[in-house]
């Protein structure tokens, strides 16, 4: 490590493509922050204990600032405070409002869920039965998204009858969709709550020849999801802007460490709103993504 360079770390809650976008944001920030060494950390498992370990080790290694997407923010408060007492701590993705973190940068999963709920209402004017698919049923982001959806569709004829979990096992994710089609012939819309759920839904419907007959609403920006949106077989997808979290977050943190605290609002919460991608804006979004990730 070059002498004198301060380390800023971005610690995520598990490995996924989603965080690749945030990493791109961090890389962009690195270009503008030559005096810092920006690190991007994936804990080897999406478990609080594992992440805690990564945080402790980062503090031990002398990180000047850490931005973390806590696995379980509600209950990690104490531990996060321990980290916050030794270094500058930002949270992202899901907040830990009661902790001593300096700021939160991210979206509100409940809002994202509400946006998806609106998509469902629009897609099913006459109502219908919906089933959702998610990786970890118990995770906060999943609960908040589901809550947002339920809140929005409450009182309408659209119904979310079940949400199936798959432990982030793709085989099971796909299988869950197959089994749902078998068990409920009258299902009229499927919702993929995690980024990989929507592509699995898309594939199963394609194989069953039901594309377009059953409405699909997704989250996040998997290429297949976007392709489906473009094709018209997926109603729309609700995306967050992790690139901005990484980019803005790192720059804010550097500023904060240098003593400039103007970028932080009083409550410490900086919401980067999500976006609904549908057939109208999908081309623009795809172009933008390509540029962000620097892909060919």
């Amino acid at each position, binding site marked *: 490590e070059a002498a004198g360079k301060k380390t800023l770390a971005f610690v995520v809650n598990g490995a996924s493509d989603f965080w690749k976008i945030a990493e791109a944001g961090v890389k962009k920030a690195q270009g503008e922050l030559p005096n810092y060494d920006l690190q991007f950390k994936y804990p080897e498992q999406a478990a609080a204990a594992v992440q805690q370990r990564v945080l402790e080790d980062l503090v031990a290694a002398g990180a000047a600032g850490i931005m973390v997407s806590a696995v379980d923010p509600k209950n990690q408060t104490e531990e996060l405070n321990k980290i916050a007492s030794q270094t500058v701590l930002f949270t992202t993705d899901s907040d830990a409002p009661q902790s001593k973190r300096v700021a939160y940068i991210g979206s509100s999963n409940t809002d994202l869920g509400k946006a998806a709920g609106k998509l469902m209402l629009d897609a099913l004017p006459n109502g219908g039965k919906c089933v959702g698919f998610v990786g970890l049923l118990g995770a906060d982001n999943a609960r908040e998204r589901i809550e947002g959806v339920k809140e929005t569709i409450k009182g309408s004829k659209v119904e979310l009858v079940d949400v199936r979990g798959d432990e982030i096992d793709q*085989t099971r994710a796909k299988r869950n969709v197959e089994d749902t089609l078998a068990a409920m012939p009258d299902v009229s819309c499927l919702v993929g709550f995690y980024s990989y759920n929507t592509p699995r839904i898309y594939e199963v419907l394609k194989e069953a020849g039901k594309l377009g007959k059953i409405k699909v609403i997704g989250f996040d920006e998997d290429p297949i999801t*976007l392709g489906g949106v473009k094709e018209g077989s997926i109603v729309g997808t609700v995306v967050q802007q992790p690139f901005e979290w990484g980019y803005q977050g790192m720059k804010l943190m550097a500023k904060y460490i240098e003593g400039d605290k103007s970028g932080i609002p009083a409550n410490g919460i900086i919401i980067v709103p999500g976006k609904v991608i549908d057939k109208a804006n999908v081309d623009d979004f795809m172009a933008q993504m390509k540029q962000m990730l620097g892909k060919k």
Partner: protein
Amino acid sequence: MQKKDLSLLILIIVVGAVVAFINPRFLLVGNLSNTANQVGMFGVFSIAEAFVIITGGIELSVGSVIALLGVLFIDLIVNRGVNWMAASALIIAAGLVIGAVHGALVTKMRIQPFVVTLCGLLIYRGVARYYTEDATAGFGFGDSFPTLEWLTAGRTDVFGFPLPHTVVAIVVVAFVAWIVLHRSVFGRYLYAVGKNEEAARYSGISSDRVIVSSYIVCGGLTALAAILIAMYTRSISPAVHGSFYELYAIAAAVLGGCSLRGGEGSILGVVLGTILLQVLQNLVNLLGIPSSLNFAVMGTVILIGVLADQYLVQRRQRAATAKGRLQAGAIAGAPADRAPAE
């Protein structure tokens, strides 16, 4: 068919009947076809595992190998434009090499199979994650390999039943494995080495070669499973893809009558074990059991099945002894000067 296999079959039928009774949609062609498809994929690597278990070893890296080879396969055909046949050959070759390395470490370096394959479990997943930088490897939208897809993930209509090609794969693999294990010289050697390596050596069997071969077979079959599964999910997050699959494989093998002490087990049993596990998965979704209870249901049914089987075995033994006693009575009543039995 061995008794063990029969009781497993009965368990499957009982579970199936109960599910069909509660939700008749269980018997829909589509659902059966989906379940059969899963059995195809999981069966291939469960049979792979059985080969190693029969020689008294264990292979814990199945899941990680499936992740690593799956990632490589997709990378080869999607990003590097390698012809899919060449890519499949390469992947299978890689599986064979991995098996050979495990076998060599176990036999030549005399490291416990558990340790060798545990390190494999850790290393291969790490390599897969590093290689993709933790990104998901997958087909882009519209990427299409019609022949490959038809071969691996397609279905053919057979008298109105959409038969998944993975089922064809498992039938072929199981048939060949059955011949090899239960009919061939090599299979006999596998059991002999698993039962008593020393006695096998004294009979002129080169047990090291047999053990290495079992790992190689396992590696090759696992690679085949990796391709089938990759083509099914069409996307692989290297951090989680296939994790815990080694437990599935071992569970299927053990349910199917393999003993972790080696020297026991039948191919039919392993296939039935796989079917049971998949029917249990299907049941949870079809009966609308909360998915959090998925594993618990699986565990409970397995436990009940094993307990029932054990109970029946013990009853059968008692019956046999009772019969023996009757015979003894008859003998005791025979004239004392009967001819010696020699």
